[in-house]
């Protein structure tokens, strides 16, 4: 796009702006924009960058709390964990690029979220990812699965940051729109938070990292649009990542941030240089002068439009104190990275950009960053919503062979072992992972000495902290399809339950809200209901939302994905040595069930897989019951009474009990279970009622454990014993666990056509 191209209505439309939005722009700046200025508005006002369809509703979220040091609005949220430390975390989507080019789409998703964390001054120490794919029988799907997993591994492993957990789900609704949500958590000195602020008039604005090329131009607008037959043509909009350069960038930035040379820093992600310049100026209430001739370029001659809109990866924009430019240069020279002063901070609330000595952009910051339209789009409950919620249990026949049902469930894509995925990720690098992938949540210990974060103060002396961090990512989108409010609340509840099962107290969440086209009232209804449900659950579990991401337009040819509001929650262990894992530990341990079995089967894996129905209501959620059960679990773990804890979720009680046996690293250990609930056997075994946790304790500790449950008001009962090589439940289930393990461990590889 050459600078002298005239802006026409067609060009405006090609930029994803409506005629009304264009009118708003002209009014805001008092004239017609030139092509580069139009490009700037088009990316900053895109759904991905401006959240114009969602902002109004996101205000529902609770975002504050005694530990919250930074809520939404910056590059990541920050929570204080005590002992002088804090954690920065966020989750982001890279859905559209991953569908087009799975390896680079997923890789650059990881790269982007990593930068959002270290730009705050935190060293990334753990990654999670939440992946949704279509049916493995759909065209291209195995290729997409392999590409995405390889891309996440390729980027994260090269950066040396462990990928410690996440989720992988398969459902036909994702056939045309896969979801790749990447999460990173970093650790930092609670008193050294860096923000994306361009303050201090006269301060130099410095560009660091990779050279700028033509990749990814209009990545932001691509993410704000549906797919159709022409989607393949969008391949050039997918950015290409270089994790080696980002590793250098990470180390250089952390080294720099350990000094006092800089005032503010922001990564260049979606909308590249445009976003960082305008947002940094906006946050400081300042302005900027930028000379594009100073920007290091990869591709010879680039137009101002291209330079401003490029989404080349691995670049940061920082503002240093006047006179400290050399200190900054020295560090980036050491790490062999580009470093160039490209402008300075002003005080007039304008961003003025020159190129070849000519002024090419002159825009007031406020309209670009703050005055993107805010839409309260119409919403309407879908006509089919009540219909899909109706389910007559009597129309569902009880299968003859419940053993066979369990085998089928546990060898199905959603419940089978996922080690094919996570063994492609380095989950051990940094030697902090004390609960590895495969359990309910990952647990990370915190070393005394963290390079560039903690100084020599803690080396070889008093232990800095005994604490540990637990992390999990959760969402059952089928529940959200059947009832978005309850489904979203259940995502929060399940995340908290998973953390409680490893012994961690939930502290806060980040989210990735993946939905269809918000211009459709039914989708908007799903979105708003989900946000409301999530907000209520966050209040009930005291887990504020400190950061997040919205991804709309996950639709192809009019078919939207199920509403998929993904939650990533972090929790704190006061003593990381007191963590818990889900598998049975010793023969003769007593198995205690916390919670209640209800007769509900709506939205379950069992109903979907065995009866080809996605119907009914998702499990009811009683916040009081959920909190009580989780508290009992955490208390029992911290007092050393609970030897194993596992929550019941997809697949129901039978699957959870089987997992307690087959997850055991030292070899299978079975159980004999006696259930007395008056519920149909298939519903009892495979229903997915919420707020249930299975724990095992040494026989001597049973009475104390039951007393604790009683005191907290949680229903509890002994349901069996650990031992043997079978899983036996009443006379309705009798499973050879060695057989089950062998099939469960290899099902995914087989479905992907691998060994």
């Amino acid at each position: 796009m050459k600078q002298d191209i005239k802006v026409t209505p067609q060009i405006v439309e090609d930029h994803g702006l409506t005629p009304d939005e264009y009118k708003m722009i002209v009014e805001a700046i008092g004239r017609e924009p030139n092509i580069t200025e139009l490009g700037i508005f088009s990316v900053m006002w895109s759904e991905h960058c401006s959240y114009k369809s969602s902002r109004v509703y996101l205000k529902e979220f609770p975002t504050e709390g005694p530990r919250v040091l930074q809520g939404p609005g910056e590059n990541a949220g920050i929570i204080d964990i005590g002992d002088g430390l804090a954690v920065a975390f966020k989750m982001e989507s890279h859905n559209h690029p991953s569908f087009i080019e799975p390896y680079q789409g997923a890789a650059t998703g990881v790269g982007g979220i990593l930068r959002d964390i270290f730009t705050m001054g935190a060293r990334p120490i753990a990654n999670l990812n939440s992946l949704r794919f279509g049916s493995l029988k759909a065209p291209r799907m195995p290729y997409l699965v392999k590409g995405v997993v390889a891309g996440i591994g390729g980027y994260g492993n090269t950066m040396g940051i462990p990928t410690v957990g996440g989720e992988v789900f398969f459902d036909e609704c994702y056939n045309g729109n896969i979801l790749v949500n990447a999460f990173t958590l970093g650790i930092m000195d609670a008193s050294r938070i860096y923000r994306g602020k361009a303050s201090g008039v006269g301060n130099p604005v410095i560009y660091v990292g990779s050279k700028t090329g033509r990749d990814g131009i209009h990545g932001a607008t691509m993410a704000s649009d549906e797919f159709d037959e022409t989607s393949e043509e969008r391949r050039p909009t997918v950015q290409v990542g270089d994790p080696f350069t980002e590793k250098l960038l990470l180390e250089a930035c952390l080294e720099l941030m350990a000094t006092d040379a800089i005032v503010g820093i922001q990564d260049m992600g979606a909308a590249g240089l445009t976003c960082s310049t305008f947002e940094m100026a906006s946050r400081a209430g300042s302005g900027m002068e930028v000379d594009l001739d100073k920007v290091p370029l990869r591709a010879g001659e680039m137009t101002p439009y291209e330079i401003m809109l490029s989404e080349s990866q691995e670049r940061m924009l920082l503002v240093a104190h006047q006179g400290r430019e050399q200190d900054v240069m020295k560090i980036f020279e050491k790490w062999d990275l580009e470093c160039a002063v490209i402008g300075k901070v002003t005080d007039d609330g304008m961003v003025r950009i020159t190129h070849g000595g000519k002024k090419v952009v002159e825009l007031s910051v406020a309209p670009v960053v703050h005055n993107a339209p805010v839409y309260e789009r119409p919403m309407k409950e879908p006509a089919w919503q009540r219909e899909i919620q109706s389910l007559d249990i009597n129309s569902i026949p009880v299968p003859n062979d419940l053993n066979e049902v369990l085998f089928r469930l546990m060898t199905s894509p959603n419940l089978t072992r996922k080690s094919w995925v996570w063994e492609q990720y380095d989950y051990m690098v940094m030697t902090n992972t004390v609960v590895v992938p495969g359990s309910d949540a990952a647990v990370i210990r915190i070393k005394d000495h963290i390079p560039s974060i903690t100084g020599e103060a803690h080396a070889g002396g008093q232990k800095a902290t005994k604490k540990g961090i637990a992390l999990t990512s959760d969402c059952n989108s089928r529940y959200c399809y059947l009832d978005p409010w309850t489904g979203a609340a259940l995502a929060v509840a399940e995340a908290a339950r998973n953390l409680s099962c490893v012994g961690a107290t939930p502290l806060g969440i980040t989210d990735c809200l993946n939905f269809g086209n918000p211009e459709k009232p039914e989708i908007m209804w799903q979105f708003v209901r989900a946000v409301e449900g999530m907000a209520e659950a966050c209040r009930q579990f005291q887990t504020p939302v400190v950061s997040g991401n919205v991804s709309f337009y996950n639709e192809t040819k009019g078919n939207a994905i199920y509403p998929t509001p993904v939650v990533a929650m972090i929790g704190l262990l006061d003593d990381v040595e007191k963590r818990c894992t889900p598998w049975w530990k010793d023969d003769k341990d007593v198995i205690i069930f916390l919670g209640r079995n209800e007769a509900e089967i709506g939205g379950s894996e069992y109903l979907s897989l065995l009866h080809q129905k996605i119907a009914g209501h998702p499990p009811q959620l009683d916040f009081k019951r959920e909190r009580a059960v989780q508290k009992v679990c955490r208390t029992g773990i911290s007092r050393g009474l609970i030897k194993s804890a596992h929550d019941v979720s997809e697949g129901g009680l039978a699957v959870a009990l089987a997992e307690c046996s087959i997850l055991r690293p030292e070899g299978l250990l079975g159980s004999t279970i006696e259930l007395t609930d008056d519920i149909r056997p298939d519903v009892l075994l495979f229903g997915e009622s919420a707020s249930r946790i299975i724990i095992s304790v040494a026989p001597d500790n049973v009475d104390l454990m039951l007393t604790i449950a009683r005191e907290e008001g949680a229903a509890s009962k002994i349901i069996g014993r650990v031992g043997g090589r079978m899983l036996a439940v009443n006379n309705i289930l009798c499973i050879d666990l060695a057989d089950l393990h062998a099939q469960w461990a290899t099902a995914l590889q087989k479905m992907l056509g691998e060994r």
Partner: protein
Amino acid sequence: MKFGIIVFPGSNCDDDCRHVLADVLGHEAFFIWHKSTDLNGANCLILPGGFSYGDYLRSGAMAAQSPVMKSVKKFEKEGGLIFGICNGFQILQEARLLPGALIRNSTLKFICRDVFVRVEQTQSPFTMACRNGQVMRIPIAHMDGNFYMEKKSLMKITDENQVLFRYCDPDGNLGKEFNPNGSMEFVAGVTNENGNVCGMMPHPERCSESILGNRDGMKIFESIISWWESKERKT
């Protein structure tokens, strides 16, 4: 004892090594930047795991040309102890300080998991604290860990007792099923002819602390320290 851990652009496991040597074992461990030629009086050099230079061209190829490698080669000629882990092993091969080559895993995928290795000889400074045939559980995490060597040369180094570790099952048996990456003769680690340089693909620094649930790797570090201390006592 003084350990010098060499840091290349893209090294990732440098601090993991420092943590074991200094925080867990209480010895002095410092970093040596790849552009420096001063080894700061180190008694043993560690080349840690990671993705030096992004594994571009070939794993370890570019790092082998770093300025520090001149000093590393000189240190080796003087009989200094050098230990390369994963990417470090690859760099030492590219620098011709260790035999063989490490190519793409036979599965063509990155593999991160615990494996078992068998100690093949215990005269080496790197295994003298182990028992002959001892089986250790040590994790691997690599894309290019497939040990390859021309057949006759492999036979020669085997005869010379230069093979230190082989992939095996928990009982020490060798077999294709227990070989995670297709390495020839299940070779997981080797030394040079003089025995002062060792390279291994598995990561002992990831299993040298009880909190991580596995201390098998500690034996290797203890071997190095024992060997050094007994050498010091003799002088």
